[in-house]
């Protein structure tokens, strides 16, 4: 969670609870739900590493709040992260291992295995279509579209496995 917090702080200084709310607003349900404790621990570590600094702001009617801001080093770390290409998704190795080993183990026929997996992917695609149709916000919509394209690739790959192995 370090880099998302740095990215939000690059926009403007904020306190822990604001960061939690912003993450939820930007990504919706897609982001793993964060508890506030996790956010404070991460902020403390970022401060220890010199990537953010903080100061207490006195509030008249409520307890002081600690506001965090990005340091020069934090900005540098963020830029490096942004500029680095990210790892692609891994192939569905669990299914592939099953497929390769199924005949060896004499447990399942390959065509049955492929058919079940194809049905599973198509069912997932069907659920995603329902979500896509009701999702009007840009970030979740793009995320759903990405998941659909991955599923299409998984299905194409399944077909290749079938052509070669069955």
């Amino acid at each position, binding site marked *: *969670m370090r880099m*998302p917090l740095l990215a939000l702080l690059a926009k403007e200084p904020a306190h822990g609870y604001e960061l939690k709310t912003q993450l939820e607003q930007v*990504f919706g*349900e*897609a*982001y*793993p739900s964060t508890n506030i404790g996790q956010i404070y621990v991460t902020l403390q570590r970022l401060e220890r590493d010199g990537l953010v600094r903080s100061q207490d702001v006195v509030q008249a009617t409520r307890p002081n709040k600690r506001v965090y801001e990005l340091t020069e080093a934090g900005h540098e770390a963020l830029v490096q992260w942004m500029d680095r290409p990210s790892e692609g998704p891994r192939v569905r190795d669990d299914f592939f291992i099953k497929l390769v080993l199924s005949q060896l183990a004499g447990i399942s026929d390959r*065509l049955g295995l492929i*058919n079940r997996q*194809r*049905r599973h*992917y*198509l*069912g*997932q*695609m*069907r*659920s*995603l*279509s*329902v*979500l896509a149709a*009701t999702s009007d916000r840009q970030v*979740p919509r793009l*995320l*759903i*579209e990405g*998941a*659909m394209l*991955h*599923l*299409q690739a998984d*299905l194409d790959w399944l*077909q290749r496995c*079938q*052509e070669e192995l069955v």
Partner: protein
Amino acid sequence: MTTGGAGLLLEAKGLAKVFRGDSVPVPAVRGVDLALQAGEFAAIIGPSGSGKSTLLHMLGGLEPPTSGEIWLAGQRVDGLTQARWAVLRRRHIGFVFQFFNLVSNMTVADNVELAALMGGATRKQARDRRAELLAELGLTARSDAAPARLSGGEQQRVALARAMANRPSLLLADEPTGNLDSGASQAVLRLLARAHADGQAILLVTHDARVASAADRVISLFDGIVIDDAVMPPQARPARLPSMLKLRG
């Protein structure tokens, strides 16, 4: 012939097609049994060369089978003449070709209206139907254009509008979203969903898993035979967010 309503609409029994190549016969479809109920929405998927298009062409009367039977609403149709098939397609079957086959010297609007008129609509009904379909597919502004002036994706949607002009009880479509971007594919899917809700049966061939998953039944073809015939679960919003949509952060 009945249109719509419950019951068996289309049935193939032991359907096969062998193309006579230069020297060796090439089997494209090798004995397919298939039954489609009135109002059912089914997709056929499979790799290139698995016989999908050939099967669809036979079911639409565009390609005579080498052997086997085709029954449409209780009538055996595989031995019909081309003229009789043409009548069936005008009245009861909409066919969307992979390569559109639009009438090149007629406008987009006339291509769609002609199909409705040939299906028995009055002039006014044909005009209304054309306007409705072109609007749904985002093509109203192209009504007066010649097909050749349209992009591939636009021509594909006109072909779909034409096939649906006479509200066929059976729509056969070969890759109806093959040339479309994501937005236009969505428009096509919405139109198909509405036609299905109105009781039209749909049988389409597709490479696009998103299109296939919109159908209530997915038939997998491989090497000219059916290897899987899956009824899909009801289309419903998942109770929990699918794990593949969760970011790891």
